[in-house]
């Protein structure tokens, strides 16, 4: 049977235990033990049922007042414990904020992949879609369909690695020397308007040095439609060059020759070192070449079954390694495929 004495005893015990609870877990245990649904105070109130209504009211009021007092005491104690905890951290368990956290593994993409993605992103923004083609190609696509027949001196512009496969006394299969053959493949399959870029690996029979690699990565672009002119080509390349190298770059063009374009041109940006005055890096020209381009030769359009009087187009091609070297200031192209982690992890 509950009485005032019981309440007083309970209060004394509760406050004593509360004093002893020195951390959050003990406080919680205390709260459940005294104030919880199955706690001692609830148990005490349950015992009221055997009392008279008058007694019940008196004891009940006292019990409720006790509950409030205990809750207050708990709150105060809890606050004190938290304060003490913070105090303890500051004094004895503070973190040295200059120490590192445990390492998380960090993987990086190859600088050529990164550069390639930037190139593709820039050109995608101008409506060019990626179209990929095979790395091992037929002579027909790599040369002949691009107006570079057998025994044409322009073949010297692309020294070729030939696959050891003979048919009718000729070697018709090769490691593609540029991604241009995919221009032809796409034009065979689609009708204008065409706006594609062809990224991929290419191969040359070429001795390696600081600026030459036998394996290289190219991005080729092609746009064919009614009303495309050299002015559009210049505009597209200038915008691309500024996106890649900075809006303040000067972009220039000079005449150049590729058998599959007419007129042909080279796109260049002002020299990084001398900014156009002429220095060793730019061979005193003030310019750095970044890519070759031109208007698609009418014969190539005609061969694709397009009317060259109605449609015009432009094509351009660039070496991703060269773009990466210029952007990152890499002085030797051979770094890219030697895969030294001390090099790769810089990007």
């Amino acid at each position: 049977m509950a009485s005032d004495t019981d309440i007083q005893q309970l209060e004394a015990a509760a406050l004593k235990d509360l004093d002893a609870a020195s951390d959050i877990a003990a406080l919680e245990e205390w709260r459940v033990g005294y104030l919880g649904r199955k706690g001692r105070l609830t148990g005490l109130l349950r015992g009221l049922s055997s009392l008279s209504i008058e007694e019940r009211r008196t004891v009940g009021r006292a019990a409720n007042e006790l509950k409030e007092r205990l809750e207050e005491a708990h709150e105060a104690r809890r606050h004190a414990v938290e304060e003490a905890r913070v105090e303890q951290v500051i004094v004895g368990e503070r973190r040295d904020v200059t120490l590192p956290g445990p390492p998380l593994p960090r993987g990086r993409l190859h600088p050529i992949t990164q550069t390639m993605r930037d190139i593709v992103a820039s050109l995608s923004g101008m409506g060019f879609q990626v179209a990929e083609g095979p790395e091992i190609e037929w002579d027909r696509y790599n040369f002949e369909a691009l107006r570079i027949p057998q025994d044409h001196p322009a073949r010297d512009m692309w020294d070729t690695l030939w696959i050891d496969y003979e048919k009718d006394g000729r070697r018709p299969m090769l490691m593609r020397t540029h991604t241009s053959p995919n221009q032809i493949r796409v034009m065979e399959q689609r009708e204008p308007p065409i706006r594609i870029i062809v990224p991929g690996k290419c191969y040359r029979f070429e001795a390696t040095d600081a600026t030459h690699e036998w394996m290289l990565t190219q991005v080729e672009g092609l746009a064919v439609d009614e009303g495309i002119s050299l002015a559009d080509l210049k505009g597209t390349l200038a915008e691309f060059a500024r996106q890649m190298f900075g809006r303040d770059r000067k972009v220039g063009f000079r005449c150049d020759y590729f058998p599959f374009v007419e007129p042909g041109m080279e796109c260049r940006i002002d020299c990084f070192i001398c900014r156009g005055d002429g220095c060793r890096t730019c061979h005193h020209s003030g310019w750095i070449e970044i890519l070759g381009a031109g208007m698609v030769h009418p014969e190539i359009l005609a061969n694709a079954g397009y009317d060259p009087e109605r449609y015009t187009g432009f094509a351009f091609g660039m070496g991703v390694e060269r773009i990466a070297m210029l952007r990152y200031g890499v002085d030797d192209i051979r770094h890219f495929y030697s895969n030294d982690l001390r090099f790769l992890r810089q990007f």
Partner: protein
Amino acid sequence: MRVPLRWLSEYVDLVLDPEELARRLTTAGVEVGEIISAGDWQNIVVGEVVKLDKHPNADRLTLPTVDIGGGEQRQVVCGAPNIAVGQKIAYAAVGARLIDGHSGEPTVLRKAKIRGVESQGMVCSEKELGLGEAHEGILVLSPEAPTGAPLADVLGDTVFDFDLTPNRPDLFSMLGIAREVAALTGQKVRDPSIQYEEKGAAAKGRAKVSIADPDLCPRYVGAIIDDVKIGPSPDWMQERLTAAGLRPINNIVDITNYVMLETGQPLHAFDYDRLAKHHIIVRRAEAGEKMELIDGSKHTLTNEMLLIADAERSVAVAGVMGGFDSEVTKETKTVLLEAANFNGPNIRRTSQALKVRTDASTRFEKGLSQHLPPIAAARAVKLMVEHAGGRAAKGVIDVHPGKAKEGRVTVTMERLVRVLGMEPSTARVREILTALGFGARWMPPDRFVVRVPYWRTDVSIADDVIEEIARIEGYDQLPTSQLRGEIPELVPQPRRDLRERVRDALADAGMQEIITYSLTDLESLQKVLPKEELAVAPPLRVSNPLSRQWEYARTTLRHALLDTLASNLRGDQSLISLFEMACVYLPREDDLPDEVEMAFGVVSGREPDRWGRPTGEPAGFYAAKSRLDHVFSALRMTADYREAKESAYLPGRTAEVFVGGDRVGLIGEVHPQVVERFDIGREVAMFEVNLDALLPHVSEIVHFQPVSPYPAVEEDLAIVVGEDVPAGRVLELIRASNLVANVSVFDVYSGDPIAAGKKSLAFAISYQAEGKTLSDAEVAKERGRIVERLQRELDAELRA
């Protein structure tokens, strides 16, 4: 093509300074690759070798004493074998700026002792003066060079070294360059004189020219010069040839070379008296016919090759090189001069087959004009009359069976606008074309009829003419615009999309991307592939590999990853994880190979501790697997791993990887024998995934599942099974329950108190029902069913 500017100025006035001129030419498509200038030749003068002593300490060195004018002499140390007393040489005093003969870098000459003897300056080679590549001997100057004069006064000329494009054979000549300079600077070209007196008998009747194969030789001009006196050519000619990079030989040969450089037309001089019956026959070679060339090389010919023969034997490989038996010698009295036109592709094929490339063949192969031979012949005869004491025969023999029509091209203003995006004035078009030697006739209302000058064999359509206008006007002067018009419909690129997602996921998993060469050697493939496989499906071979190292198109990337790993080991246990995305090339019968898109990865080393030091567990199978699973998770795929045996992989630690029932790859620890072949010296785990096999299982779109509002019940379950029961099998059976929302393994244990041959597996299971909260009883019932299934299928027991 090297063009000394002093020589060039004979044909056109050079009104711009060399750098500006080079810029204009380059911008117009005539690229000046290098400007070789007289250089900063301060402190370099003409010296005369007056005495030559032996070096006391070195046999190969000499001690020349050089008179440098003004009564002064200097003793220097010299290593050149060609130095001799009496020579005029280039003497560099201390402080002169030179090119280092070995490194090719600019340097300043310092006082130096060489093998114990002080050198008071230096005698220079061509290379040291920046004039060329020759460095074996010193540069010997003309005997007339005044001792003590600054070298710049004697040799000072700026040379343009052009990087020319193969479509412009006309530019491989002084006159061709002069025409470009004239058009770009508003000057006029001065053609060299071809007038001479014909004092000899008529050429016709003294020699006969027959062209048996007019398809390969459209024109042959023969001129005869009598009573020539063979000797050195004049100094000015020798100097020009030297400056242009050719070696002077004798007056007749020098004149043929000089006129070739001047006009672009290769010439050949035969000794008239050594031509049997004075009969020139231009014909295809007999198969197997043999020939010795002027350079002493011997060749066996095929019937694709064109020959110049006399009545008895071959005397030259047409357009490539003359024969040994008919060349001009000291005894030659009468010269038969050949100026011919040959088929370009045929000359190119012959020159490549014989591996003989000459100044002649590189010009012929590009397709020269048929109008050029008589002009060049006349010019050469004139010079032979003047400088070899010859008498020119009357007339020439000119056989011309394959006359080409004069080129005419119609260019409409509509086309000009269509290609250039602007309309130039007709006056400007006419001005540019006229300056380049074209004839431009305006046909109202809208077109030009353009006559193409004979030397421009590259111009045949309207767009060719349009390029002429654009390049002389300057591309930078033309308008610029952005693409308009319709953007083509999107063509999906699922293969590329998958590749890029996998690439990102692998980098996300902490792996470093590498890119290695697509070609390799057989040894590398043999290290990682079984011999039988290579024998049954040999990789594609490159017939002209750059090196044996890069001979075969790879059918795997295993070797590449292991090689790269090996080359990056730095003697510690640091974790290295690499991946590469690339094609392998699987040969197919009479077709291009199948280019299969692959992802390869390797992991090796110890996992880092809290401080990043490699002190943790050595990365093995599970380290590779977590990375690969990271990829599948990124792709929202689930992969099954089934234990397998594979060559190059360690049995017992290798699995095949399946997605949606298709085998998509392999994963495992690399076999210790293979690891050893790559000199790696520590455990390596590897995986390889065929992206083309994975492609059909990519689902583009995620379908949203509502999150259940009812709480899940989490429970642990520990069972004991036979040691060789795969956890995956147990998981599969637990997942078969449709109240199991999730299950994962969290412990594997064998040893006391588990019976031998058994292991304990612990699983965290989360039960959930659709549409309600599960009661304890329902969970207990389902658990019972699962345990029963495990007992039945796997002989499993609940762990006590």
